[in-house]
Protein backbone atom coordinates (compact mmCIF):
# COMPACT_ATOMS: atom_id res chain seq x y z
CA UNK A 1 0.00 0.00 0.00
CA UNK A 2 2.75 2.43 0.89
CA UNK A 3 4.41 2.00 -2.49
CA UNK A 4 1.29 2.66 -4.51
CA UNK A 5 1.10 6.35 -5.47
CA UNK A 6 -2.67 6.05 -5.80
CA UNK A 7 -3.13 5.38 -2.09
CA UNK A 8 -0.61 7.96 -1.03
CA UNK A 9 -2.70 10.43 -3.00
CA UNK A 10 -5.83 9.39 -1.12
CA UNK A 11 -3.98 9.89 2.16
CA UNK A 12 -2.92 13.33 0.99
CA UNK A 13 -6.49 14.21 -0.05
CA UNK A 14 -7.72 13.09 3.38
CA UNK A 15 -5.22 15.39 5.09
CA UNK A 16 -6.04 18.25 2.75
CA UNK A 17 -9.80 18.01 3.37
CA UNK A 18 -9.35 17.70 7.15
CA UNK A 19 -6.99 20.68 7.13
CA UNK A 20 -9.28 22.93 5.09
CA UNK A 21 -12.25 21.90 7.23
CA UNK A 22 -10.47 22.98 10.40
CA UNK A 23 -9.25 26.28 8.94
CA UNK A 24 -12.70 27.23 7.62
CA UNK A 25 -14.37 26.11 10.86
CA UNK A 26 -11.96 28.33 12.75
CA UNK A 27 -12.66 31.37 10.55
CA UNK A 28 -16.44 30.93 10.78
CA UNK A 29 -16.57 29.67 14.36
CA UNK A 30 -14.37 32.26 16.04
CA UNK A 31 -16.71 35.26 15.62
CA UNK A 32 -19.70 33.20 16.74
CA UNK A 33 -17.87 31.90 19.81
CA UNK A 34 -16.85 35.49 20.58
CA UNK A 35 -20.48 36.60 20.35
CA UNK A 36 -21.58 33.71 22.59
CA UNK A 37 -19.03 34.63 25.24
CA UNK A 38 -19.90 38.33 25.30
CA UNK A 39 -23.71 38.22 25.61
CA UNK A 40 -25.67 37.46 28.77
CA UNK A 41 -26.47 33.91 29.87
CA UNK A 42 -30.00 33.90 28.53
CA UNK A 43 -29.00 34.99 25.02
CA UNK A 44 -26.04 32.62 24.92
CA UNK A 45 -28.33 29.78 26.01
CA UNK A 46 -30.67 30.57 23.13
CA UNK A 47 -27.82 30.81 20.62
CA UNK A 48 -26.42 27.52 21.90
CA UNK A 49 -29.69 25.80 21.04
CA UNK A 50 -29.26 26.98 17.44
CA UNK A 51 -25.67 25.78 17.40
CA UNK A 52 -26.45 22.44 19.04
CA UNK A 53 -29.55 21.68 16.99
CA UNK A 54 -27.58 20.59 13.92
CA UNK A 55 -25.39 18.58 16.29
CA UNK A 56 -28.41 16.41 17.13
CA UNK A 57 -29.79 16.02 13.63
CA UNK A 58 -28.73 12.98 11.67
CA UNK A 59 -25.59 13.57 9.57
CA UNK A 60 -27.31 11.70 6.76
CA UNK A 61 -30.27 14.11 6.81
CA UNK A 62 -27.98 17.13 6.84
CA UNK A 63 -25.90 15.80 3.95
CA UNK A 64 -29.06 15.00 2.01
CA UNK A 65 -30.25 18.57 2.57
CA UNK A 66 -27.02 19.81 0.99
CA UNK A 67 -27.61 17.51 -1.98
CA UNK A 68 -30.98 19.21 -2.51
CA UNK A 69 -29.40 22.65 -2.20
CA UNK A 70 -26.18 22.19 -4.15
CA UNK A 71 -27.27 19.85 -6.94
CA UNK A 72 -27.17 20.88 -10.61
CA UNK A 73 -30.93 21.47 -10.51
CA UNK A 74 -30.71 22.29 -6.84
CA UNK A 75 -32.08 25.23 -4.90
CA UNK A 76 -28.97 27.41 -5.06
CA UNK A 77 -28.42 27.04 -8.81
CA UNK A 78 -32.12 27.58 -9.33
CA UNK A 79 -32.13 30.82 -7.33
CA UNK A 80 -28.98 32.12 -9.01
CA UNK A 81 -30.33 31.47 -12.50
CA UNK A 82 -33.77 32.94 -11.74
CA UNK A 83 -32.22 36.10 -10.35
CA UNK A 84 -30.05 36.43 -13.44
CA UNK A 85 -26.64 35.93 -11.82
CA UNK A 86 -25.97 32.80 -13.82
CA UNK A 87 -26.98 31.40 -17.16
CA UNK A 88 -25.65 27.86 -16.72
CA UNK A 89 -25.76 25.95 -13.43
CA UNK A 90 -22.52 25.69 -11.45
CA UNK A 91 -21.01 22.41 -10.28
CA UNK A 92 -21.47 22.90 -6.56
CA UNK A 93 -21.19 19.28 -5.48
CA UNK A 94 -19.35 16.09 -6.36
CA UNK A 95 -16.20 18.17 -5.82
CA UNK A 96 -14.07 19.66 -3.04
CA UNK A 97 -16.41 22.63 -2.60
CA UNK A 98 -19.42 20.40 -1.88
CA UNK A 99 -17.48 18.25 0.59
CA UNK A 100 -16.20 21.29 2.47
CA UNK A 101 -19.61 22.99 2.62
CA UNK A 102 -21.11 19.82 4.12
CA UNK A 103 -18.26 18.98 6.47
CA UNK A 104 -17.74 22.49 7.85
CA UNK A 105 -21.43 22.68 8.78
CA UNK A 106 -21.19 19.39 10.65
CA UNK A 107 -17.89 20.20 12.38
CA UNK A 108 -18.64 23.81 13.42
CA UNK A 109 -20.11 22.87 16.84
CA UNK A 110 -16.87 20.97 17.59
CA UNK A 111 -14.99 24.23 16.99
CA UNK A 112 -17.40 26.62 18.69
CA UNK A 113 -17.81 24.71 21.98
CA UNK A 114 -14.10 24.55 22.97
CA UNK A 115 -13.59 28.17 21.85
CA UNK A 116 -16.63 29.29 23.86
CA UNK A 117 -15.53 27.45 27.00
CA UNK A 118 -12.12 29.17 26.90
CA UNK A 119 -13.44 32.62 25.94
CA UNK A 120 -16.02 32.51 28.73
CA UNK A 121 -13.17 32.28 31.21
CA UNK A 122 -11.27 35.32 29.91
CA UNK A 123 -11.40 38.21 32.35
CA UNK A 124 -13.09 41.09 30.50
CA UNK A 125 -11.58 43.63 32.89
CA UNK A 126 -8.25 43.03 31.14
CA UNK A 127 -9.77 44.41 27.95
CA UNK A 128 -11.11 47.47 29.75
CA UNK A 129 -7.69 47.99 31.31
CA UNK A 130 -6.03 47.82 27.94
CA UNK A 131 -8.44 50.34 26.43
CA UNK A 132 -8.13 52.70 29.36
CA UNK A 133 -4.37 52.63 28.87
CA UNK A 134 -4.89 53.96 25.36
CA UNK A 135 -4.94 50.87 23.14
CA UNK A 136 -7.54 50.95 20.39
CA UNK A 137 -10.16 48.15 20.23
CA UNK A 138 -8.31 46.41 17.40
CA UNK A 139 -5.02 46.28 19.30
CA UNK A 140 -6.82 45.24 22.46
CA UNK A 141 -8.38 42.31 20.66
CA UNK A 142 -5.21 41.31 18.82
CA UNK A 143 -2.75 41.68 21.68
CA UNK A 144 -4.88 40.62 24.66
CA UNK A 145 -8.00 38.65 23.77
CA UNK A 146 -6.68 36.61 20.85
CA UNK A 147 -3.59 35.24 22.65
CA UNK A 148 -5.74 34.43 25.70
CA UNK A 149 -8.13 32.44 23.52
CA UNK A 150 -5.24 30.38 22.09
CA UNK A 151 -5.97 27.22 24.18
CA UNK A 152 -9.48 27.16 22.69
CA UNK A 153 -8.12 27.63 19.18
CA UNK A 154 -5.69 24.74 19.60
CA UNK A 155 -8.34 22.47 21.10
CA UNK A 156 -10.97 23.31 18.48
CA UNK A 157 -8.70 23.04 15.44
CA UNK A 158 -7.14 19.75 16.54
CA UNK A 159 -10.49 18.24 17.47
CA UNK A 160 -12.03 19.20 14.12
CA UNK A 161 -8.97 17.90 12.28
CA UNK A 162 -8.99 14.56 14.10
CA UNK A 163 -12.71 13.93 13.64
CA UNK A 164 -12.55 15.04 9.99
CA UNK A 165 -9.81 12.50 9.17
CA UNK A 166 -12.29 9.68 9.65
CA UNK A 167 -15.29 11.27 7.92
CA UNK A 168 -17.31 9.00 5.73
CA UNK A 169 -20.97 9.85 5.01
CA UNK A 170 -20.53 13.45 3.85
CA UNK A 171 -17.57 13.01 1.47
CA UNK A 172 -19.17 9.82 0.12
CA UNK A 173 -22.35 11.67 -0.86
CA UNK A 174 -21.06 15.15 -1.73
CA UNK A 175 -17.61 14.26 -3.05
CA UNK A 176 -16.43 13.33 -6.49
CA UNK A 177 -13.59 11.36 -8.01
CA UNK A 178 -11.01 13.86 -6.81
CA UNK A 179 -12.11 13.97 -3.18
CA UNK A 180 -11.81 10.34 -2.12
CA UNK A 181 -11.04 10.06 1.59
CA UNK A 182 -9.53 7.08 3.33
CA UNK A 183 -12.81 5.97 5.00
CA UNK A 184 -14.46 5.76 1.60
CA UNK A 185 -11.73 3.46 0.27
CA UNK A 186 -12.05 1.27 3.37
CA UNK A 187 -15.80 0.88 2.83
CA UNK A 188 -15.38 0.38 -0.90
CA UNK A 189 -12.74 -2.33 -0.51
CA UNK A 190 -14.78 -3.96 2.20
CA UNK A 191 -18.26 -3.99 0.66
CA UNK A 192 -17.60 -4.07 -3.07
CA UNK A 193 -14.09 -5.36 -3.73
CA UNK A 194 -14.44 -7.76 -0.77
CA UNK A 195 -10.74 -7.33 -0.09
CA UNK A 196 -10.92 -7.55 3.68
CA UNK A 197 -7.16 -7.83 4.19
CA UNK A 198 -6.52 -4.60 2.33
CA UNK A 199 -9.41 -2.85 3.96
CA UNK A 200 -8.18 -3.90 7.42
CA UNK A 201 -4.72 -2.59 6.56
CA UNK A 202 -6.20 0.78 5.59
CA UNK A 203 -8.26 0.77 8.80
CA UNK A 204 -5.05 0.30 10.77
CA UNK A 205 -3.49 3.26 8.93
CA UNK A 206 -6.48 5.44 9.81
CA UNK A 207 -6.42 4.22 13.42
CA UNK A 208 -2.68 4.92 13.63
CA UNK A 209 -3.12 8.45 12.23
CA UNK A 210 -5.91 9.15 14.71
CA UNK A 211 -3.74 7.97 17.62
CA UNK A 212 -0.80 10.10 16.43
CA UNK A 213 -2.94 13.24 16.32
CA UNK A 214 -4.61 12.38 19.63
CA UNK A 215 -1.13 12.24 21.15
CA UNK A 216 -0.45 15.70 19.74
CA UNK A 217 -3.79 16.80 21.20
CA UNK A 218 -2.87 15.34 24.56
CA UNK A 219 0.43 17.21 24.45
CA UNK A 220 -1.02 20.62 23.60
CA UNK A 221 -4.47 20.51 25.14
CA UNK A 222 -4.68 17.55 27.48
CA UNK A 223 -6.89 14.55 26.83
CA UNK A 224 -8.93 15.35 29.94
CA UNK A 225 -10.41 18.36 28.17
CA UNK A 226 -11.59 16.48 25.13
CA UNK A 227 -15.24 17.09 25.96
CA UNK A 228 -16.06 20.21 27.91
Amino acid at each position, binding site marked *: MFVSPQYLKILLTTFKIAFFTSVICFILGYPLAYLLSSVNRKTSGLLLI*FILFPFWTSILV*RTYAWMIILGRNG*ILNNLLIRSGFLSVPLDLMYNLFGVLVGMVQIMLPFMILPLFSVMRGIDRDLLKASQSLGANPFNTFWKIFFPLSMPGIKAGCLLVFIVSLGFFITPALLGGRKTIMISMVIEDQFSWALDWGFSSALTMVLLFLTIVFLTVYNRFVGIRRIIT
Partner: protein
Amino acid sequence: MNWKIAFYLICGVVLLYLTLPIFIVIPMSFSSADYLQFPPPGFSLKWYRSFFNDYHWLLAAERSFKVAIITTILATFLGILSSLSFMRGNLKKKDFINFLLLSPMIFPVIVISIAIYGFYAKLGIIGTVFGLVIGHTIMAVPFVFVTVSAALTNYNMEIEYASLSLGANRLKTFLKITLPIIRPGVLSGALFAFIISFDEVVVSMFISGWRYTLPVKMWMDVRSEINPTITAVSSLLICLSVIILGSTNLLMRKK
Protein backbone atom coordinates in the same frame (compact mmCIF):
# COMPACT_ATOMS: atom_id res chain seq x y z
CA MET B 1 -18.58 50.98 14.07
CA ASN B 2 -18.38 49.28 10.67
CA TRP B 3 -16.44 46.48 12.33
CA LYS B 4 -19.34 45.83 14.63
CA ILE B 5 -21.85 45.58 11.78
CA ALA B 6 -19.55 43.24 9.85
CA PHE B 7 -19.14 41.13 13.00
CA TYR B 8 -22.89 40.74 13.57
CA LEU B 9 -23.39 40.05 9.88
CA ILE B 10 -20.83 37.22 9.92
CA CYS B 11 -22.41 35.74 13.06
CA GLY B 12 -25.86 35.90 11.48
CA VAL B 13 -24.71 34.26 8.27
CA VAL B 14 -22.94 31.46 10.16
CA LEU B 15 -26.05 30.82 12.28
CA LEU B 16 -28.18 30.62 9.14
CA TYR B 17 -25.63 28.31 7.52
CA LEU B 18 -25.88 26.02 10.56
CA THR B 19 -29.67 25.78 10.71
CA LEU B 20 -31.38 26.86 7.50
CA PRO B 21 -30.28 23.97 5.21
CA ILE B 22 -31.86 21.48 7.62
CA PHE B 23 -35.26 23.16 7.50
CA ILE B 24 -35.26 23.50 3.72
CA VAL B 25 -35.98 19.78 3.53
CA ILE B 26 -39.39 20.24 5.18
CA PRO B 27 -41.13 22.37 2.47
CA MET B 28 -39.58 20.10 -0.17
CA SER B 29 -41.21 17.07 1.47
CA PHE B 30 -44.70 18.54 0.86
CA SER B 31 -44.02 19.10 -2.84
CA SER B 32 -46.41 17.79 -5.45
CA ALA B 33 -43.65 17.47 -8.08
CA ASP B 34 -42.53 14.02 -9.15
CA TYR B 35 -38.89 14.92 -8.80
CA LEU B 36 -37.04 17.42 -6.61
CA GLN B 37 -38.01 20.87 -7.76
CA PHE B 38 -37.64 24.25 -6.13
CA PRO B 39 -39.84 26.10 -5.36
CA PRO B 40 -42.37 23.26 -4.97
CA PRO B 41 -45.14 23.70 -7.57
CA GLY B 42 -47.92 22.69 -5.19
CA PHE B 43 -48.80 21.09 -1.90
CA SER B 44 -49.20 17.35 -1.58
CA LEU B 45 -48.79 14.60 0.96
CA LYS B 46 -47.81 12.01 -1.59
CA TRP B 47 -44.24 11.47 -0.34
CA TYR B 48 -45.55 10.83 3.15
CA ARG B 49 -48.12 8.46 1.65
CA SER B 50 -45.37 6.75 -0.31
CA PHE B 51 -43.43 6.31 2.95
CA PHE B 52 -46.35 5.02 5.03
CA ASN B 53 -47.53 2.69 2.26
CA ASP B 54 -44.16 1.11 1.64
CA TYR B 55 -43.68 -2.10 3.57
CA HIS B 56 -39.86 -1.83 3.38
CA TRP B 57 -39.74 1.65 4.88
CA LEU B 58 -42.14 0.69 7.68
CA LEU B 59 -40.21 -2.46 8.46
CA ALA B 60 -36.97 -0.45 8.63
CA ALA B 61 -38.64 2.15 10.89
CA GLU B 62 -40.00 -0.54 13.20
CA ARG B 63 -36.55 -2.11 13.46
CA SER B 64 -34.96 1.24 14.23
CA PHE B 65 -37.47 1.98 16.99
CA LYS B 66 -37.02 -1.45 18.52
CA VAL B 67 -33.22 -1.20 18.51
CA ALA B 68 -33.23 2.41 19.76
CA ILE B 69 -35.53 1.65 22.70
CA ILE B 70 -33.52 -1.34 23.92
CA THR B 71 -30.25 0.55 23.33
CA THR B 72 -31.54 3.49 25.39
CA ILE B 73 -32.29 1.25 28.37
CA LEU B 74 -29.00 -0.62 28.17
CA ALA B 75 -26.82 2.45 27.49
CA THR B 76 -28.47 4.45 30.29
CA PHE B 77 -27.92 1.62 32.76
CA LEU B 78 -24.26 1.16 31.76
CA GLY B 79 -23.71 4.92 31.55
CA ILE B 80 -24.96 5.47 35.12
CA LEU B 81 -22.81 2.63 36.46
CA SER B 82 -19.66 3.80 34.68
CA SER B 83 -20.22 7.39 35.69
CA LEU B 84 -20.86 6.50 39.36
CA SER B 85 -17.73 4.38 39.60
CA PHE B 86 -15.70 6.99 37.75
CA MET B 87 -16.85 9.96 39.82
CA ARG B 88 -16.90 8.17 43.19
CA GLY B 89 -14.38 5.40 42.94
CA ASN B 90 -10.82 5.78 44.03
CA LEU B 91 -9.49 4.80 40.61
CA LYS B 92 -5.95 4.92 39.35
CA LYS B 93 -5.20 6.31 35.88
CA LYS B 94 -8.43 8.29 35.80
CA ASP B 95 -7.45 10.22 32.68
CA PHE B 96 -6.85 7.04 30.79
CA ILE B 97 -10.15 5.49 31.92
CA ASN B 98 -11.95 8.67 30.93
CA PHE B 99 -10.31 8.50 27.52
CA LEU B 100 -11.31 4.85 27.08
CA LEU B 101 -14.92 5.60 28.04
CA LEU B 102 -15.10 8.44 25.54
CA SER B 103 -13.16 6.71 22.77
CA PRO B 104 -16.23 5.66 20.71
CA MET B 105 -16.94 9.40 20.39
CA ILE B 106 -13.45 10.19 19.13
CA PHE B 107 -12.25 7.32 16.96
CA PRO B 108 -13.38 7.14 13.33
CA VAL B 109 -16.68 5.32 13.16
CA ILE B 110 -15.47 3.30 10.17
CA VAL B 111 -12.65 1.85 12.29
CA ILE B 112 -15.15 0.89 15.01
CA SER B 113 -17.51 -0.57 12.39
CA ILE B 114 -14.86 -2.79 10.80
CA ALA B 115 -13.79 -4.01 14.24
CA ILE B 116 -17.38 -4.79 15.29
CA TYR B 117 -18.06 -6.51 11.97
CA GLY B 118 -15.00 -8.75 12.32
CA PHE B 119 -16.05 -9.71 15.82
CA TYR B 120 -19.73 -10.28 14.92
CA ALA B 121 -18.89 -12.36 11.86
CA LYS B 122 -17.09 -14.82 14.16
CA LEU B 123 -20.02 -14.87 16.60
CA GLY B 124 -22.56 -15.15 13.78
CA ILE B 125 -24.77 -12.30 15.04
CA ILE B 126 -24.75 -10.11 11.90
CA GLY B 127 -28.25 -8.94 11.03
CA THR B 128 -29.71 -9.57 14.50
CA VAL B 129 -31.44 -7.03 16.74
CA PHE B 130 -29.15 -8.18 19.53
CA GLY B 131 -26.06 -7.34 17.45
CA LEU B 132 -27.41 -3.90 16.52
CA VAL B 133 -28.30 -3.14 20.14
CA ILE B 134 -24.79 -4.00 21.35
CA GLY B 135 -23.19 -1.99 18.52
CA HIS B 136 -25.35 1.07 19.18
CA THR B 137 -24.83 0.79 22.93
CA ILE B 138 -21.07 1.10 22.36
CA MET B 139 -21.72 4.36 20.49
CA ALA B 140 -24.28 5.71 22.99
CA VAL B 141 -22.69 4.99 26.41
CA PRO B 142 -20.17 7.90 26.19
CA PHE B 143 -23.02 10.40 25.82
CA VAL B 144 -24.82 9.06 28.90
CA PHE B 145 -21.51 8.99 30.77
CA VAL B 146 -20.91 12.68 29.98
CA THR B 147 -24.38 13.92 30.98
CA VAL B 148 -24.59 11.81 34.17
CA SER B 149 -21.05 12.81 35.18
CA ALA B 150 -22.00 16.46 34.71
CA ALA B 151 -25.00 15.92 37.02
CA LEU B 152 -22.78 14.21 39.60
CA THR B 153 -20.16 16.99 39.61
CA ASN B 154 -22.22 19.31 41.78
CA TYR B 155 -23.57 16.55 43.92
CA ASN B 156 -23.44 16.81 47.68
CA MET B 157 -22.38 13.48 49.20
CA GLU B 158 -23.51 14.47 52.70
CA ILE B 159 -27.14 13.66 51.87
CA GLU B 160 -26.18 10.09 51.14
CA TYR B 161 -24.29 9.74 54.41
CA ALA B 162 -27.34 11.08 56.19
CA SER B 163 -29.56 8.51 54.49
CA LEU B 164 -27.14 5.68 55.25
CA SER B 165 -26.75 6.71 58.87
CA LEU B 166 -30.52 6.77 59.26
CA GLY B 167 -30.65 3.09 58.39
CA ALA B 168 -31.34 2.95 54.65
CA ASN B 169 -29.23 0.46 52.77
CA ARG B 170 -27.07 1.31 49.73
CA LEU B 171 -29.67 0.35 47.12
CA LYS B 172 -32.47 2.22 48.86
CA THR B 173 -30.24 5.28 49.24
CA PHE B 174 -29.40 5.16 45.55
CA LEU B 175 -33.02 4.80 44.44
CA LYS B 176 -34.56 7.30 46.87
CA ILE B 177 -31.82 9.92 47.15
CA THR B 178 -29.17 9.76 44.44
CA LEU B 179 -31.32 8.91 41.43
CA PRO B 180 -33.96 11.64 41.95
CA ILE B 181 -31.21 14.25 42.31
CA ILE B 182 -29.31 13.28 39.15
CA ARG B 183 -32.53 12.56 37.22
CA PRO B 184 -32.27 15.47 34.72
CA GLY B 185 -28.79 14.29 33.72
CA VAL B 186 -29.95 10.68 33.44
CA LEU B 187 -33.01 11.58 31.36
CA SER B 188 -31.13 13.81 28.95
CA GLY B 189 -28.46 11.10 28.63
CA ALA B 190 -31.21 8.61 27.82
CA LEU B 191 -32.71 10.89 25.16
CA PHE B 192 -29.30 11.38 23.59
CA ALA B 193 -28.73 7.61 23.62
CA PHE B 194 -32.05 7.19 21.81
CA ILE B 195 -31.22 9.68 19.07
CA ILE B 196 -27.66 8.33 18.66
CA SER B 197 -29.06 4.85 18.10
CA PHE B 198 -31.96 5.96 15.92
CA ASP B 199 -29.73 8.02 13.61
CA GLU B 200 -26.75 5.66 13.54
CA VAL B 201 -25.73 4.80 9.96
CA VAL B 202 -22.19 3.54 9.55
CA VAL B 203 -22.01 0.79 12.19
CA SER B 204 -25.50 -0.39 11.20
CA MET B 205 -24.52 -0.46 7.54
CA PHE B 206 -21.89 -3.05 8.33
CA ILE B 207 -23.79 -5.17 10.83
CA SER B 208 -27.47 -5.00 9.84
CA GLY B 209 -27.04 -7.51 7.01
CA TRP B 210 -30.13 -7.48 4.78
CA ARG B 211 -32.44 -6.30 7.55
CA TYR B 212 -31.99 -2.56 7.24
CA THR B 213 -32.58 0.03 9.91
CA LEU B 214 -34.23 3.30 8.80
CA PRO B 215 -30.97 5.26 8.28
CA VAL B 216 -29.37 2.33 6.41
CA LYS B 217 -32.36 2.10 4.08
CA MET B 218 -32.12 5.84 3.60
CA TRP B 219 -28.40 5.62 2.86
CA MET B 220 -28.98 2.91 0.26
CA ASP B 221 -31.69 4.98 -1.42
CA VAL B 222 -29.72 8.24 -1.38
CA ARG B 223 -26.76 6.50 -2.97
CA SER B 224 -28.71 4.94 -5.80
CA GLU B 225 -31.23 7.64 -6.74
CA ILE B 226 -32.65 10.91 -5.49
CA ASN B 227 -36.09 9.76 -4.48
CA PRO B 228 -38.30 12.47 -2.95
CA THR B 229 -39.66 9.95 -0.39
CA ILE B 230 -36.39 10.63 1.43
CA THR B 231 -37.45 14.25 1.95
CA ALA B 232 -40.46 12.95 3.89
CA VAL B 233 -38.30 10.55 5.93
CA SER B 234 -35.78 13.33 6.58
CA SER B 235 -38.53 15.70 7.73
CA LEU B 236 -39.83 13.08 10.16
CA LEU B 237 -36.29 12.58 11.52
CA ILE B 238 -35.84 16.36 11.89
CA CYS B 239 -39.09 16.54 13.89
CA LEU B 240 -37.82 13.76 16.13
CA SER B 241 -34.59 15.72 16.74
CA VAL B 242 -36.54 18.89 17.53
CA ILE B 243 -38.72 17.00 20.02
CA ILE B 244 -35.71 15.39 21.70
CA LEU B 245 -33.61 18.54 21.87
CA GLY B 246 -36.68 20.44 23.13
CA SER B 247 -37.27 17.93 25.91
CA THR B 248 -33.64 17.93 27.04
CA ASN B 249 -33.75 21.72 27.19
CA LEU B 250 -36.89 21.62 29.32
CA LEU B 251 -35.21 19.09 31.62
CA MET B 252 -32.13 21.28 31.97
CA ARG B 253 -34.25 24.33 32.71
CA LYS B 254 -36.17 22.54 35.45
CA LYS B 255 -32.86 21.74 37.09
